[in-house]
């Protein structure tokens, strides 16, 4: 039984689709079931490591997508030496919000802050959701496709780095 089958069996409404590419399982899930799926992955399937969180903006993609934003989670199991990728389409295009998984994987803290900073995806339940890379007075989210490339926002004063 593959991992996606197991998730399908435990949380029937969660999995939208699943496939395997280059020996890595890719599971597309519902945004509402994200936290539950993360729990299953960590406690039952042995994915003890969250490698990365990445956000995508599909608004300028050649094919029209139903959801503008998508969050990708990359998991790794040190016990089984396997990888799994979770794809989570974010329902709202204007104010994208998904659940934070910091309760399950505490390493998600900074990754989710980076996603918020660069893409403007809010993570509900995050303990300290503020910008990670850009400065406090920065307006907008620079990696969104509608952010102008030549727009500049100089930093007027030195910030305390700690």
């Amino acid at each position, binding site marked *: 039984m593959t991992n996606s089958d197991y998730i399908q069996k435990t949380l029937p409404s969660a999995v939208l689709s699943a496939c395997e590419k280059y020996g890595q399982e890719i599971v597309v899930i519902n945004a509402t079931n994200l936290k539950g799926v993360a729990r299953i992955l960590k406690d039952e399937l042995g994915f003890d490591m969250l490698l990365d969180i990445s956000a995508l903006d599909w608004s300028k993609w050649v094919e029209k997508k139903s959801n503008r934003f998508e969050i990708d989670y990359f998991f790794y199991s040190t016990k089984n030496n396997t990888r799994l990728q979770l794809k989570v389409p974010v329902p709202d295009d204007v104010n994208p919000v998904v659940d934070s998984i910091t309760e399950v994987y505490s390493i998600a803290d900074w990754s989710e802050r980076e996603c918020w900073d660069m893409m403007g995806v809010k993570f509900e339940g995050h303990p300290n959701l503020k910008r990670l*890379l850009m400065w406090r007075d920065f307006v907008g989210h620079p990696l969104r496709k509608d952010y102008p490339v030549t727009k500049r926002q*100089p930093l007027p004063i030195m*910030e305390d780095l700690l």
Partner: protein
Amino acid sequence: MATQTTQIPEQHESALTRYFGDTVLATRVDDIINWGRKYSLWPMPYGTACCAIEFMGTVSGAFDISRFGAEVVRFSPRQSDLLLVMGTINYKQAPVLKKIYEQMCEPKWVISVGACACSGGFYNNYSVLQGIDEVIPVDVYVPGCPPRPEQILDAVMKLQKKIDPMNRIEK
């Protein structure tokens, strides 16, 4: 010595040369100070990218920046008079660079090494400063991505040429 020697009046010349021989050279204060400054530049490297690797080559034996008197690399801005900015400077770093420049004692000079420091290079985006001259004054720009060590040496020589005619009160 490239400094201008002033003519010593004849009546004195004979007395001086009788006493000192050719061990004395008369010049102006500005010239002797500039002569000292330009051959003892103490660089401070502010390296953030691959241009700093080229600087390592410039300092090392094969190219040897000490032939131009600039080998005493200091890692404190308070002890140096030549700031070498090598690499990409982003907006978050710009105030840090400015503060470091402000901490240097007068007289001070800045060489901007490489495409990124001069103009932002190919980083034309939300995060990168489009040339360090937006925050600090630059004396010599060195093009290249990264520039060869010879170019950095050339910049040092260009700066020496710039220091030479300077008025002591100017800087």
